[in-house]
């Protein structure tokens, strides 16, 4: 069934936004050799009760939303990452060791209500 939501409110719904993390902004360029930065992204937006089941939500989020309608003291589901991926980092430590390491959960690939 079609969902009647205006274009304006669609923009406010939970979805992924671009966020480039530049290591220079954090001062980390002094020890990270590569990469210089990466597209980490972030999740932001509303998770209205009426649309929870359409916004890549977990079963738990759906139930939490139902509970919120029954008892407003239960918080509404929020927009969170639902799929993350790793990056590799090449850096130099204080002992002049050069280290190549993977770091899990550094890039937001997908968002949903949870």
């Amino acid at each position, binding site marked *: 069934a079609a969902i009647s939501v205006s274009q304006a409110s669609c923009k406010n719904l939970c979805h992924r936004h671009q966020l480039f993390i530049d290591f220079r902004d954090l001062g*980390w360029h002094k020890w990270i050799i590569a990469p210089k930065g990466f597209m980490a992204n972030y999740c932001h937006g509303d998770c209205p009760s009426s649309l929870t089941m359409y916004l890549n939500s977990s079963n738990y989020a759906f139930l939490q939303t139902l509970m919120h309608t029954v008892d407003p003291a239960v918080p509404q589901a929020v927009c969170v990452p639902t799929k993350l991926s790793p990056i590799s980092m090449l850096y130099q430590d204080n002992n002049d060791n050069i280290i190549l390491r993977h770091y899990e959960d550094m890039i937001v690939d997908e968002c949903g209500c949870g």
Partner: protein
Amino acid sequence: SHFQEHGFLQFLGLEKVPSPDRFLPVPRILRTIFQDREAAAAGGIPQDLCYVKELRVRGNLLRLLPDQGFFLNSQKSSQDDSCLQKFLYFNLSDIKVKEQLTMAQLGLELGPSSYYNLGPELIVTLSVVEPGGWEGSDPKPGRMLALHSVPWPQGALHFNLQDVGKDWNSSRPKNLGFYLEILAKDDSRYSGVKFQLEDACARLRHSLRASLLVVTLNPEQCHPSRRRR
């Protein structure tokens, strides 16, 4: 903000923010692995983060440790054919107890390859120095690990130290020491031109760089590989 940064760095496995004086050159193998993984991630290709396919070993952390050793017998007699003797020392204290060493490879950079630098053939001998065998006295060579005959100049030499890896996993020493000796093989082409040999050895002493590449695996982050049926 500083408190949060500290917490995040601990999550990354770092005690504090590194502040190296200068960046050291990154060896090609590490750059290649990094670039391959970056390309795979960009292409959405699934990766096994606990296997280093370029080195064909399991592991999720690669470290290149610089040599912190020193040259030996700098006042040696000019009669022998010994080009140089060096004690190679690597500090392994940053490797956490949880980590299992899956590969150790010693790299020796003998200097740039050049037609004009052609010189005598070299005999490179690498021996173990037992832990503690360098405290208070000059390190002495122990069990020989490798003996290589190499034409001059050779660029980089690599020694796979599988036994060292096995020993390390059982005894967990905080450091490793090796005795490196390079001999210039006597060659009739160089008879009477001893000064050229000495020049070649002096150049080698200047250009020699040693490093230890270690790959470790943290079992908490990597599940055992599936056994083949």
